[in-house]
């Protein structure tokens, strides 16, 4: 572990930025290409673009935001992991609960995904 105190600052090298940028271009262009050209069936495409988004978020976190185990003595990483857990609970929990409420409370609207009056 290096002793340099200002290594905590979110610096980066030209190389990390370029690697991050190239990976991001691939992970952005890929999903758009899949969706516009209808390469796979909708379910496979949905899975593929969600995976690409998660990977790209991680790439941005490492290459652009420079989060690693040693920045700020690990506190940025800890805060990041904690926030990620909260974000997942809020989003997945809301979707799960509201999906079940919809299917239990509004039978004429089906699952709520095709609610056309």
């Amino acid at each position, binding site marked *: 572990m290096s002793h340099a*105190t*200002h290594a*905590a*600052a*979110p*610096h*980066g*090298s*030209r190389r990390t*930025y*370029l690697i*991050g*940028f190239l990976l*991001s*271009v691939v992970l*952005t262009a890929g*999903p*758009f290409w899949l*969706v*516009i050209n209808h390469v796979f069936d*909708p379910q496979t*495409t*949905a899975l593929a*673009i*969600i995976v*690409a*988004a998660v990977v*790209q*978020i991680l790439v*941005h*976190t490492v290459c*652009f*935001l420079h989060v690693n185990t040693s920045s*700020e003595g690990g*506190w*940025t990483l800890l*805060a*990041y992991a*904690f*926030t990620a857990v*909260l*974000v997942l609970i*809020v*989003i997945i*929990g*809301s*979707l799960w609960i*509201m999906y079940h409420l919809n299917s239990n409370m509004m039978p004429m609207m089906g*699952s*709520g*995904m*095709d*609610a*056309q*009056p």
Partner: protein
Amino acid sequence: MSAETVPDTTFFVTEEEHHDAGGATLLGFWIYLMSDALIFATLFATYGVLSGSFAGGPSPREIFELPLVALNTAILLVSSITYGFAMIAMQEGKLGGTKAWLAITGLLGAAFVGIELYEFSTLIHEGATPQTSAFLSAFFTLVATHGLHVSFGILWLVVMLVQLSQRGLHPENQRRLMCLSMFWHFLDVVWIGVFTFVYLLGVL
């Protein structure tokens, strides 16, 4: 503050570990960004729940224009790397390079906001207003909150350009630029979620 005036039985830390002030600010700003992420999480959750409630209004497939979204995504991604180059120029102590890259980043950000406003005005002219359906309310809230963040980022960028012109690359300005760097890259991370979950999954 001298140590000998303090008795041995103190219940507080008399000698703080001497971090430079920049480190504390950067960590604090990071915590702010994480709380901002929670705001976006609630907006994403709201959109996720309401994204099927059209109330007779248009569906995502009818109103989203993917080429425009792809253009906006590209602009924001390029603005991320140009901000990175500004940070590298700052590390090398090049004031001119830093200002030039920052100005390019600001222009790209302005283009992003401009295209988004154009998209919004097109939607509203087509009758897809926030009042039309729960889906559109959630859509406009989520995307406009992100756009508002980018707009404030541009404002901050302009302020930093003025500060750099007046005072150069002194440590305080460097610290501010690092905070803005995190802010700018964070907004790009949020946009990954927007273009994936709102636009791409919407038209699927």
